[in-house]
């Protein structure tokens, strides 16, 4: 087996070259703005969603997968009990209803966005 893997072992340098070319193509076009862009997208998307749904800001995941031609931006937001934010200020009686609602199980919404 070790003899076989010795002969079938692929050269690693071309892999290094290809990975670098893809990475640097992105880093050059986006530069230092890249991390800011993701932070900005995160904030603005959360702002829009928070207008309609109550969300926990600690339960938001932003993932970026950069490919040669297409990149995907995945935003995973956990929404506890999917209730309308507008229903919140009703107060009083609504409070117990809310608690019961959250016990009935947290729904998970997974909006996905793709950037090219």
């Amino acid at each position, binding site marked *: 087996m070790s003899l076989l893997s010795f002969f079938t072992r692929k050269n690693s*340098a*071309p892999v*290094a*070259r290809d990975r670098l070319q893809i990475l640097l193509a992105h*880093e050059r076009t986006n530069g230092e703005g890249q991390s800011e862009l993701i932070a900005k997208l995160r904030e603005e998307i959360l702002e829009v969603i928070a207008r309609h749904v109550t969300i926990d800001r600690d339960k938001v995941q932003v993932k970026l997968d950069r490919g040669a031609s297409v990149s995907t931006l995945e935003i995973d937001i956990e929404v506890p009990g999917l209730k309308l934010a507008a229903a919140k200020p009703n107060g009083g009686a609504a409070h117990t209803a809310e608690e019961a609602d959250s016990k009935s199980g947290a729904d998970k919404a997974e909006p996905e966005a793709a950037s090219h």
Partner: protein
Amino acid sequence: MAKVLVVTSGKGGVGKTTSTAAIGAALAQSGKNVVVVDFDVGLRNLDLVMGAERRVVFDLINVVQGDAKLSQALIRDKRVDTLSILPASQTRDKDALTPDGVARVIAELREKFDWVVCDSPAGIEKGAQMAMYHADEAVVVTNPEVSSVRDSDRIIGMLDSTTLRAKNGQKIDKHLLLTRYDPARAARGEMLRTEDVLEILSIPLLGIIPESEEVLRASNLGSPVTLSNPESAPARAYFDAVRRLQGETLEMSVPSERRGLFGKWFKWRVA
């Protein structure tokens, strides 16, 4: 006219200080008046690599802050009398290097020397920016390895945007120095080839320094490799690089240690 050269890389441990010492010494060995300046405040090592660690009295910070005259801080090399060292300070205060102070010292060095070779600290922070700010030319030291190439790309971007020349709309000459190169491994596809690195970074190649035991031996002895063993493969590679730096056109090759009975230099041709 004096030239200010920064030796930089982004990544640490790729051979900036070794290359600064070797390039500075090789320039001085060719008869030029040279000063090597250590910008690595807090982690000075150029003095140690050059064998001058016991002669440091004043340093760059003392001169920048006006506590010492430049002539008091400069250490003349004992082996090559046209070579001087301006050591860095061991202070932990990162703000000790003021832009105005550095500008004044560089201007004064330009009057005294033909070449001012600045050894940059690793990273992209203030220290590295200070080291490259006044440079006319830059040597980007890169290992044939992914993290080093990526960091070099970043540094090249900074050279084109944050230096004084860039701000004045002038261009800064950038040269790639590929260090710790193993031509045999590159030929076997185990290491990025010179062409790969050149294609990715697209700046002209100044030289290829082969991986060699002589480099560690030189730093053990406190001597630039071009002085400790001028016939060694890395020394010959540095001599060639320095001739290119001075405008000569030479065939690009990777020197290797003498082999065979006839002591013929065995060279790896590079495309």
